[in-house]
């Protein structure tokens, strides 16, 4: 049964986020669950009444059951407006606190794989542009800056290993020892920090650039010693 409600604004399903492929399917799903009483119980006349641009108030002369079905149809199609998230919803229904709605909406992202094993794919958060998981990596002493996709790594170890391998062709040393290298990163606030303190997923979200350096004579590298540093950023080295 085709349940296109002509007067309704295009429905953006809030629960799944901006997945254009799913829009139509979701539209149908949402519309199905929102059949008005009249439609659900085969009263054709109420369907026709939807196409009337009635101003929304039932006429007091109406017979109660007809008014009721009009009201329930009306719930489906009028009093839409842009919610804070840009979703079209019947205002005030369901009666869920807007804070809670926003929180759950902020969590509804394209299906993500198990948190531990994989990095979250690029996503929208609070309407800001999706976080780009490609970051530039500079190796000290090497002119060429490389770009890597953080999504394919699951831990600091695997990232560091890959970077060392990537850059090893540029230098003659055969150091594959992780301890000889220090990984630092620039976060979204512009500060240079030593990598390793944040949980991996938090790190992926905040990293903007990476740098890998070799320790000299066993001395630990300080974060951002090649860059302007903010004072509060001396962290335990990785």
């Amino acid at each position, binding site marked *: 049964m085709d349940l296109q409600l002509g007067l309704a604004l295009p429905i953006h399903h809030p*629960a799944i986020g901006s997945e254009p492929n799913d829009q139509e399917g979701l539209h149908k*799903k*949402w519309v199905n669950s929102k059949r008005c*009483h009249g439609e659900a119980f085969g009263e054709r006349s109420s369907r026709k009444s939807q196409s009337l641009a009635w101003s929304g*108030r039932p006429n007091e002369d109406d017979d109660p059951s007809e008014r009721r079905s009009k009201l*329930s149809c009306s719930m489906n199609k009028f009093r839409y407006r842009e919610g804070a998230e840009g979703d079209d919803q019947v205002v005030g229904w*369901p009666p869920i606190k807007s804070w809670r709605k926003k929180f759950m909406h902020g*969590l509804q992202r394209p299906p993500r794989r198990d948190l531990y094993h994989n990095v979250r794919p690029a996503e929208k958060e609070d309407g800001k542009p999706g976080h780009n998981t490609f970051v530039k990596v500079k190796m000290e002493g090497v002119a060429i800056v490389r770009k890597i996709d953080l999504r394919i790594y699951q831990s600091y170890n695997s990232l560091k290993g890959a970077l060392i391998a990537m850059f090893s062709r540029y230098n003659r040393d055969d150091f594959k020892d992780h301890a000889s290298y220090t990984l630092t990163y620039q976060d979204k606030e512009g500060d240079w920090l030593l990598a390793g303190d944040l*949980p991996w997923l938090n790190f992926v979200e905040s990293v903007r650039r990476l740098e890998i350096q070799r320790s000299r004579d066993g001395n630990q590298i300080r974060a951002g010693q090649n860059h302007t540093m903010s004072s509060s950023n001396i962290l335990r080295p990785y």
Partner: protein
Amino acid sequence: MNYFPDEVMEHVFDFVTSNRDRNAISLVCKLWYRIERLSRQRVFIGNCYAISPERLIARFPGVKSITLKGKPHFADFNLVPHDWGGHVYPWIEVLARSRVNLEELRLKRMVVTDEGLELISRSFVNFKSLVLVTCEGFTTDGLAAIAANCRSLKELDLQENEVEDHRGQWLNCFPESCTSLVSLNFACLKGDINLATLERLVARSPNLKSLRLSRAVPLETLQKILVRAPQLVDLGVGSFVHDPDSETYSKLLTTIEKCKSMRSLCGFLEVAAYCLPAIYPICSSLTSLNLSYAPGIPGSELTKLIRHCRKLQCLWILDCIGDKGLGVVASSCKELQELRVFPSDPYGVGNASVTEEGLVAISRGCPKLTSLLYFCQQMTNAALKIVAQNCRNFIQFRLCILDPTKPDSSTNEPLDEGFGAIVQSCKGIRRLSLSGLLTDQVFYYIGMYAEQLEMLSIAFAADSDKGMLYVLNGCKKIRKLEIMECPFGNIALLSDVGKYETMRSLWMSSCEVTLGGCKTLAKKMPRLNVEIFSENNEMENCIDDEQKVQKLYLYRTLVGPRKDAPDYVWTL
């Protein structure tokens, strides 16, 4: 009449702590009124526009704790336009100027600003407790002022507020000398937190009993905090994700076992289901569990967890627990008094949802239930009747069928009889929210049986004015009535205008009342503020009394129309 000196009376009154009882005391005679008002320390004001701060202080000069509520309840559901009001700054200003010895401020649905928070922090030397629920208008800069200046701060409790996070170091603003914290809740903040500062703050707060963390606090930090604060009674977990083979996780397991005082758990704002077993050791002593903000935990994991929580009195959960899961709750949690089941997917078809079966199971297993909020896919009269028979102690009963005009799913009849059974059986019911297909009949039952009803929320219900009339005539104790999308008009509105002075407020949106009806009401009742909202200034252009009013909010007040109403609010 009075045989005791004032000091003795005052001492006796000290034992009377409930505001209602104290209000009653003050009505006995002038002497008691005087003694009571001079010794009153806690004042509750359900509508900040019903009274002015000046009058409050004049009557209760010794007040130390004030609770204020601002916007109408339906503001929670985006029905009240932005900038409606509920500003707390004027209150703080007057309180500060009058040198009130304010120690505690609890606000709900109010607009709070950084200036206000700063003024609080500088004006009240003994300020101890700030509780903000569903407020907005402030940033973490305001919190920094509170942290920095309130020397004896015990409680900073932020629940579901809209806070602009400036990612400053507000936590750093707690001085090293601050060791008095008992309760800290910043779960609603979205920005990053300086974790080292947080750990140090916890380390120097030996009285800390309640700590609720935001999503920015990872599991490693949680573990370190719990080591410092094994005395915690109430914990809100931020992020609970980690590699189960890691050292941190095994440390966490050991640490959690030492938290013998833990009674209440909430949060899990980011969680991996396989991490949940870490909390099993403390589940057996939990009395309160709120997993309603924990996304994506499958029903099977939820039920595994709940089987361990045999002492639970309060449970807030998402509907992905399913009817079967509620069956597990019913068989495990015999002490349950409060249950809230929230929809995980409010606009979806309902794969993850609950039905009348879950509710019936709960009623069979948990006879002590007094408070229910239940979002479900469908309901039947038969189920409600069974619930009414099994649970006679409901004080709050809020049922929300996601499709608001859905009839009984097995008989297609209205749900009048089901709700009727509830109000008839639960004589103490004080708060009721209805949904589903409902006619005037359910209101007949409510008016007839719900003698203790104080708050009623209705949407998409009734056939005529009779519905509202039954409620207004029958419910002697009704205080708050909020109605949306019902066919109630001027006849109902104007039938007993004096009634509204016995109530706190009335909200009607998308009903049948007209501008003329509202004007009549306002004219007859000068001690009500009758506010009309128009969303597109139609009220300015159109003065036709026959025009239907989109939103009406009226409330009793001793101080006349408010001066801070925005343009779209017309006080008649």
